[in-house]
């Protein structure tokens, strides 16, 4: 069952964050990032706040509230989810005059992200596109995983069984993420960062293998047998991690 509050957290803290990586892969996104600087704040009732700073050649995601040039307000998670599903609009509180930016460059950015994340099969035949899809998918999936672990009822049950520590998620020769676990709550960090108790690892044989797995082309249990996913280290963390990973498609498909 998809929990709307969890989905809103996934949208706000995982999907939106993934815009950060877009300019590295996409000309149009790069153009927008090089354009006018705007800071968009998302305030979602019952979920939280986050800001997206666009400009100066990059897109930066910042969890929490602060100064902004455009303020968007959603009364609850379901309304945010409707915007992401393309069936609803936010209510601008500040920067009403910036409607043009939202409808123009910002919508273009989210469309580009959708283009990469919900990839059409024929596009995946192109190696460059495929790599971009894999990298962005890896990013969104493992940020979503922490949100699901902290908010989804099944996710919380599984996260509650995890021992404190951290697990490295990496693709050989490619990007890495670190997921820290403390008192049954998970936090995803970008990169192979030093956190206390990094006790386990889930390493994909290549970025492409990671992409295949997240796109559902490769079963995770099968991938363990073929060596496309290699697990090692403190097994009690890994065991629950697999269960959480199994919940991700509920929210991202």
């Amino acid at each position, binding site marked *: 069952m998809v929990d709307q509050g969890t989905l809103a957290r996934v949208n706000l803290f995982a999907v939106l964050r993934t815009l950060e990586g877009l300019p590295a892969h996409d000309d149009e996104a790069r153009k927008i990032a090089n354009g006018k600087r705007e800071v968009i704040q998302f305030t979602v009732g019952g979920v939280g706040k986050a800001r997206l700073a666009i400009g100066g050649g990059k897109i930066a995601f910042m969890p929490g509230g602060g100064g902004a040039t455009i303020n968007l307000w959603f009364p609850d998670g379901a309304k945010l989810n409707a915007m992401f599903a393309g069936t609803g609009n936010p209510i601008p509180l500040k920067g009403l005059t910036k409607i043009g930016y939202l409808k123009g460059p910002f919508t273009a950015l989210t469309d580009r992200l959708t283009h990469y994340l919900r990839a059409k099969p024929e596009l995946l035949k192109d190696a460059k596109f495929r790599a971009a899809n894999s990298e962005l998918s890896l990013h969104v999936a493992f940020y979503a995983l922490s949100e699901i672990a902290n908010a989804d*009822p*099944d*996710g*919380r*049950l*599984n996260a509650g*069984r995890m021992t404190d520590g951290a697990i490295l998620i990496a693709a*050989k020769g490619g990007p890495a993420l670190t997921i820290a676990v403390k008192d049954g709550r998970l936090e995803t960090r970008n990169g192979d960062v030093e956190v206390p*108790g990094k*006790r*386990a*690892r889930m*390493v994909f044989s290549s970025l492409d293998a990671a992409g295949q797995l997240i796109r559902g082309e490769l*079963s995770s*249990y*099968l991938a*363990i*047998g*073929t*060596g496309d996913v*290699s*697990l*090692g*280290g*403190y*097994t*009690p963390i890994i065991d629950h991690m*697999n*269960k959480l990973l*199994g919940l991700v498609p509920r929210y991202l498909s």
Partner: protein
Amino acid sequence: MKTYTYPKSAELFARAAKVIPGGVYGHLGPAEGCFMPVQAYPLFSSRAEGAYFWDVDGNRFIDYMCAYGPNILGYNDPDVDAAVQAQLKDGNCVSFPTAKLVDLGELMVDTVDMADWAFFAKNGGDTTMFSLMIARAATGRKKVVLTKGGYHGVAPWTQKAGHPGITPEDVANNLYVDFGDFEGLERLFAEHRGEIACFMSTPYYHPVFDDNRLPPDGYWKKVRELCTREGVVLAIDDVRCGFRLDVRGSDAHYGFEADLECFCKALANGWNISAVCGKDWLREAAGSVMYTGSYWLSAAPIAAAIACVGKMRKMDVAKVCTEKGRKLTSGLAEAGKRHGFDLKISGEPAMWFMRITDDPNMDHHQAWVAECVRRGVFFTNHHNLFINAALTDADIAFTLDVADEAFAAVKKDGPLSARKGW
């Protein structure tokens, strides 16, 4: 020592991947089996004999998993297999049971101390489910107390809420207590007085990942008294330990008497049969529960169980396996020491658990086990291991040589995470 490679296993796995979910699923597969790294392990066997199996690449292994318990006398035991062959000539799965069903019932009652009757099924999970149903039928109560980290099969009530396919309702009647925590159990019984049908536990604590623990002094005696006082059925899940600790049942081994006792694994040396033994006061309830299956009264596995139980009694298989286990595990610990590793052995020697201490990430342990496997000694990382009666002194000596070399390799190359290109 030559180290193994597994090209044919990999080839077969690729074929399996196309038609079988997960390739090889469950505890015999690389995911649940914690094959880390998978490249160190075979994935398919081609044949087995005594204490060994050979994989599809022709590599020989001393098998310390014993099919996760069923292999107690040695693979292809001549006496058990001859009984099966003879029975097959007369028939197997027929519209009626044979006289051997009654023979086996009598043999179980004669062998297992607590048994007033015996009931037969196929898997361990059949027997734990049936035990719970008997307890509910007998008491008119719903709840079951289980120990945290215990394993009783794969029926939804034995799994955890939040796991794939499991709903909160599936586990709504479960209560959990730590193994060995008598006060905790007493408290649960008091909080749920009149609601608890059954306390189900393995005779000692043998979870995955954790050191195994024997029952604290006096624990089972107190639990027995508490269950009797509260009208709760005491069901011992002896699926894994049964016959390896004591042919009379593991309750007898630890000096108490269960109301119900579940057997499977070692009962027929790998032929498919399981059993529930029970006390007289539960006979009616057991007869009242509708519980059966297509193959449950098939004659060949029953013939195997008769031969196996007879042979286990005659040779005192638990004593044999315990002595071999002691010899092996003390040697393994010494091998570790020679290379500066503390290999901690826990549980019962016939089905010991081991782990390298000072290894919080389990990295050295996984590397050591992988090095042993690649040299022909099949251990798994985080599950208890098993001894069978066919294991010889020469096998133990070979194992200790392998263990020594594997420790040396880990000392030299470090754990997997420290190696290049992992």
